């Protein structure tokens, strides 16, 4: 290569490099983006202390090894620029991106990743991913930017556990040196991460203030400051948005019409949680099993008739329209979103509203005059509509002769029963956010720990599916198993009352421009990509 040509090529390469690095040429961050959310207050910064519930307010500061492509939903690089799955899923090797810095200026290394994983797994950890990270047999730092993780058994979806594009991503990578130097209390007061926003101020349960990291390796935010304010009252949030005091609000579907009337722009986050009614007691191997519970009785055929009747008695479409503000899709199956590759047409089709047939099925099952049931009306964080869903379902059940005892119960009180599977004969409305892209992973987590098998039911067939899926390294084959075998099994078994997939909305003020969101991600995210108008 002659010298002038080499120089020209080098200049051209440099020019294209500049074009390809948007963060280095992005406009300087300006202004304050103020976000009013309904609830936070349990935020914890250290990896072994947070359970993930405050994902919305923590995510701006942190990053994970991987993320999900907003368009395809597939795994994509983040702090790991590439990764390898070896030995049938027993070994995962992550190649950590060079040049990524924590907010204190220290460079991210494989040691930080190992420290984070070990912290999540340690005894007494409150992190919701602790059971999965305890499956790690050993970790080797091959060099400052390569970490190899070994498992005893294949862990084919470990990439989903170190993923930014899910709710809640609990494996945010932390700085080993910072936590060791500052101590736990110090690190809690002055947390650092590698994300596009750095910590400025935190008043628990009131506000969290972040500042943009200029020239961030991935995305320099368009806004200089990001402020999360806790505003518990939805009407106040709407008023603050209309008055221009805040730029983004978290709001329930029941307010969507009101927002439209006052010309407030809304952004819909589609299909962010599965809404269904749990029919408690389907755990025959547990000491709390009660064979008298109609839907969980030992006579499988009669029990199934009862579960089918409980589905047919409920007008799911009406609930979706009137309780969830029309923001959702009615479905006939569990743990599936409409766009999932395993959501076949059969699974998507909701159970019809046929109260007469429901009555007939109840009679055939031996309950011509119905039976008594308790409906727990329990609100869960971020899903305040659940008691209303429970109330609506209870009303429909009463129309087919079932006597429903409503029991408003606090989450903290019910949690003990929930964990101990001590709610046989009790029903409740529940909504699962997308904490794993593949539906079986939710069941796997439960099964793996042996603490809460399959969340709401146990069945040998389900265990069999989970065991097969857990060691199947081929994604397409896992999709096939879910679509052709496991999905139809669940649809036929009818473990609960399927309502559907619910959307979430955000009210957005006039200063906010584009806001790309990851499909199925519950809760606000991607603040660094929110543009200014």
């Amino acid at each position, binding site marked *: 290569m002659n010298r002038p040509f080499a120089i020209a090529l080098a200049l051209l390469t440099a020019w294209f490099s500049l074009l390809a690095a948007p963060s280095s040429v992005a406009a300087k961050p300006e202004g304050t983006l103020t976000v*009013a959310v309904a609830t936070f*207050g*349990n935020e*914890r910064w250290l990896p072994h*202390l947070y*359970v*993930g519930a405050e994902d919305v307010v923590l995510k701006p500061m942190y990053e994970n090894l991987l993320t999900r492509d907003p368009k395809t939903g597939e795994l994509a690089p983040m702090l790991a620029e590439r990764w390898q799955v070896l030995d049938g899923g027993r070994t995962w090797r992550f190649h950590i991106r060079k040049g990524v810095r924590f907010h204190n200026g220290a460079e991210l290394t494989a040691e930080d990743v190992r420290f984070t994983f070990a912290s999540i797994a340690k*005894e*007494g*950890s*409150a*992190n*919701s991913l*602790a*059971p999965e990270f305890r499956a790690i047999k050993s970790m080797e730092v091959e060099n400052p930017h390569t970490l190899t993780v070994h498992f005893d058994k294949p862990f084919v979806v470990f990439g989903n556990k170190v993923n930014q594009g899910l709710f809640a991503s609990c494996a945010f990578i932390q700085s080993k040196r910072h936590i060791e130097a500052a101590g*736990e*209390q110090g690190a*809690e*007061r002055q947390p650092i991460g590698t994300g596009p926003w750095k910590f400025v101020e935190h*008043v*628990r*349960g*009131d*506000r969290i203030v972040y500042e943009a990291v200029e020239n961030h390796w991935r995305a320099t935010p368009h806004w200089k400051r990001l402020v999360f*304010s*806790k*505003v*518990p*009252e939805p*009407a*106040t949030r709407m*008023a*603050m948005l*209309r*008055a*221009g*005091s805040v730029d983004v609000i978290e709001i329930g579907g029941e307010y969507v019409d009101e927002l439209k009337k006052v010309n407030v722009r809304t952004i819909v986050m589609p299909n962010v949680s599965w809404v269904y009614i749990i029919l408690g007691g389907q755990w025959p191997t547990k000491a709390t099993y009660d064979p008298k519970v109609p839907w969980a009785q030992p006579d499988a055929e009669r029990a199934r008739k009862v579960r089918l009747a409980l589905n047919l008695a409920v007008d799911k479409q009406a609930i979706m329209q009137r309780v969830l503000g029309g923001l959702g899709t009615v479905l006939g199956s569990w743990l599936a979103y409409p766009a999932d590759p395993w959501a076949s047409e059969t699974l998507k089709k909701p159970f019809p509203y046929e109260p007469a047939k429901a009555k007939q099925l109840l009679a055939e099952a031996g309950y011509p005059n119905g039976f008594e049931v308790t409906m727990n009306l329990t609100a869960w964080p971020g899903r305040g509509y659940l008691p209303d869903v429970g109330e609506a379902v209870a009303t429909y059940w009463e129309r087919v002769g079932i006597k429903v005892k409503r029991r408003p119960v*606090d*989450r*903290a*009180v019910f*949690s*003990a029963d*929930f*964990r101990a599977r001590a709610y046989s004969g009790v029903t409740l409305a529940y909504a699962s956010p997308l904490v794993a892209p593949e539906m079986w992973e939710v069941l796997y*987590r*439960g099964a793996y*720990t*042996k*603490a*809460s098998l399959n*969340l709401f039911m146990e069945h040998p067939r389900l265990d069999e599916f989970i065991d097969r899926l857990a060691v199947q390294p081929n994604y397409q084959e896992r999709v096939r198993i879910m679509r052709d075998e496991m999905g139809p099994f669940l649809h036929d078994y009818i473990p609960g009352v399927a309502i559907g997939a619910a959307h979430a909305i955000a009210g957005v003020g006039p200063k906010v421009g584009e806001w790309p969101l990851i499909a199925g991600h519950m809760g606000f995210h991607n603040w660094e990509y929110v543009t200014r108008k």
Partner: protein
Amino acid sequence: MGGVGGSGAAPPDVDILSYLVGRAFQTVLSMLVVVSIVFVLTRLSGNPIYLLLDVNATQRDQEILTRHLGLDKPLPVQYGIYVMNVAVGDFGNSIISRRPVTEHIWERLPATVELGFVAMFLSVLIGVPLGMYSAVRRGGVLDTAARVFAVLGQSMPTFWLGLMLILFFGVVLGVLPAGGRGGLLHLVLPAFTLGYFTSAAILRLTRSAMLEVLGSDYIKFARLKGLHEQVVLWKHGLRNALLPVVTFAVLLFVQFLGGAVVTETVFAWPGLGRLILESITTRDYPVVQAGVLVLSALYLTGNLCVDLLYSYLNPRIRHVSS
């Protein structure tokens, strides 16, 4: 309102110092009772471990965290440790944040005191003059208007009034902030919302007290003496009529500190009431206990101040005491 009348006057046969010592002893005893009740009630309300740990956490995780937080010890032992720590000023760490509870209280207390003080000031500023003139011009237009004001103030739900004020002044006119804590302007709507109810109560109380005082012999005598009507009203009338009003106002101020949860929620005001409420929902025992303890201390101190004010405002009480 326990202290309004019953605890009011100092017994005539004890000097003021022993009276104060006695009251201080009563205060400590009352606080111990409050601490004990709150301690038991918080423990009955649910286990924070279930909220702290993920639903899939193992039994072993639960045991470790329970031990770490000292919740594995028998309740009487936990209670003993807590009382001893409180006695030396150690309120413990928050279960959720693991930071000292006092930090959380101090973070929120200024906002609460600020709101309570301004609300109380507004209440007195509106309620006392209106009540007084309403009594003086009994049956007149001003009296009718004041009574309408009082009825509205006492019948309108705080959350509704707050939201209406936000919509009108924050959204429609855009002249006041719709929520949150900031400068003086941020205080106007929440303080008015909180103060309106009490200003109406103060108005009614002032009016009835003034009517009673104005009918008394010493007012008639003052008028017979030929004193100027303004002197009769302000010096002899209002001063005596203020006794129950002051009691009421001070105790309401203390109540504002912990009982303004609705106003704090509607206006997203980061006060102590909201902190306690949120801590109850997360079963953060130490924060709830410390918050309630601080509030009861303030309440009891307020009660004591009222008693002292009584003796200052009412010469008869002062003379009997001394």
